[in-house]
């Protein structure tokens, strides 16, 4: 949970300081993170079930979603993608002449 707070603090200041306006485009944020988040949560569920990784029950909140996924993992796939979007938008704000696509 501390890690998630750190990520929020580390990235969301860009929203104010550089006015990246990511949260203003919340629909576009959601359409970007929901499909990817669902795929990764399926992976997470499979990895937990197969024992690829596990979590120390004493160091997590102990609240679990579907398929035994800790709440922190679900929040991770919301917080981290938003932080990444804010990062690229911040870079674009600072480096306005760097093209982002050739479409």
């Amino acid at each position, binding site marked *: 949970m*501390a*890690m998630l707070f*750190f*990520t929020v603090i*580390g990235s969301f200041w860009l929203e104010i300081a550089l006015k990246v306006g990511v949260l203003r485009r919340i629909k*576009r*944020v959601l*359409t*970007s*993170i929901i*499909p*990817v988040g669902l*795929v*990764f949560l399926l*992976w997470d569920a499979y*990895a937990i079930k*197969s*024992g*690829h*990784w*596990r*979590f*120390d029950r004493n*160091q*997590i909140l102990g609240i679990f979603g579907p398929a035994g996924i800790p709440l922190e993992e679900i929040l991770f*796939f919301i917080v*981290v*993608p938003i*932080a*990444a*979007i804010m*990062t*690229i938008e911040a*870079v*674009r704000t600072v*480096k306005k002449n*760097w*093209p*982002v*696509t*050739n*479409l």
Partner: protein
Amino acid sequence: MSYTLIALSMVIVSLLLDVFFLKVKLVTRRVFWVSYAIVLVFQLLTNWWLTSRNIVMYNSDAIIGIRIASAPVEDLAFGFSLILSVLTIWIYQEKR
């Protein structure tokens, strides 16, 4: 090595999404790599926190065993595919 294989597959899927399906081609852009580099620094920091304190633990059968900042090297592939997929879809929506 199951985590290794899934993580590598996801890197390939995210590259296919970016280059062939949505044709955003973010991986050819400096803006992506600079952004990824920034994210990577924070990923290494938070990964180190989560793994060195054993908040998250990995089955040694699932990984190849190479560790970077105390976390399995596979986490880099995990993070890269997550970030590339999200940013590809984010930018794709802007250009439609």
